[in-house]
């Protein structure tokens, strides 16, 4: 009997990021997981790139010119957006994990995301 289908399997990890038919909490989970992975990649990239500082003023200042590239600037903007989304959703998780606001987790999510949006707008205006 082919019972392998419809069973849990590691290969279904993509379903985490496609919250079709899911509710608010499922979307929050997908967002948090996506930003977590993105930020981890950025973190280790950032640590590696900063090694250029040790190569002296020439290498570092040359690298800084690269960061004027609009694509890089967009990437930096994306990092701050990711931090805001992940961080504020994380606060919601900390609160609910300790029993605060558990019955209102949907409202908490919407509230925090509105704050995130405002901060993102403020940051974008400042950056550009």
């Amino acid at each position: 009997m082919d019972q392998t289908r419809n069973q849990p399997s590691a290969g279904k990890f993509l379903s985490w990021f496609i919250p079709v038919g899911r509710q608010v909490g499922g979307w929050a989970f997908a967002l948090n997981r996506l930003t977590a992975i993105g930020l981890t990649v950025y973190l280790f990239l950032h640590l590696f790139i900063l090694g250029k500082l040790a190569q002296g003023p020439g290498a570092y200042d040359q690298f800084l010119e690269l960061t004027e590239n609009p694509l890089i600037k967009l990437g930096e903007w994306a990092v701050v957006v990711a931090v805001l989304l992940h961080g504020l959703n994380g606060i919601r998780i900390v609160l609910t994990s300790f029993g605060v606001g558990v019955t209102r987790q949907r409202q908490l999510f919407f509230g925090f995301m509105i704050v995130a949006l405002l901060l993102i707008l403020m940051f974008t205006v400042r950056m550009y």
Partner: protein
Amino acid sequence: MSQSTSSSYISAPRPGETSWLWLIKIVTGPLLILVFILHLTVNHYIGSLPSGLMTYADVVHYYQNPIIPAIEILFLITVVTHSLIGLRGIILDMNPSRPVLRAINWFFSLLGVFSVIYGIWLVLAIASKGGK
């Protein structure tokens, strides 16, 4: 009816992810928010120029104040810990086998320790450049 699942579900709990790792993750989270705001603010809005630390010389000068390396090292340890514990959690959600999990544990531990040592070295190296 044929059984495709094992007859006894509960095996011994797998070692590793106990309350401590989760506690560390959930404590480093809010701590990171505070430290990150600090890091972003000083790196991009303060410094000798209105647009923040823009050249190698700016960075070296900025690192002369001992508070700065201290904050940066704190930030480094907190973010590497939070990030790697979180990433390990994501991998655990994919039900790795015991040998794979052991390998991941070793790899992440080494990566974490190495990253922190490297980061501390870098911070101190930059700070020391200003003495010349």
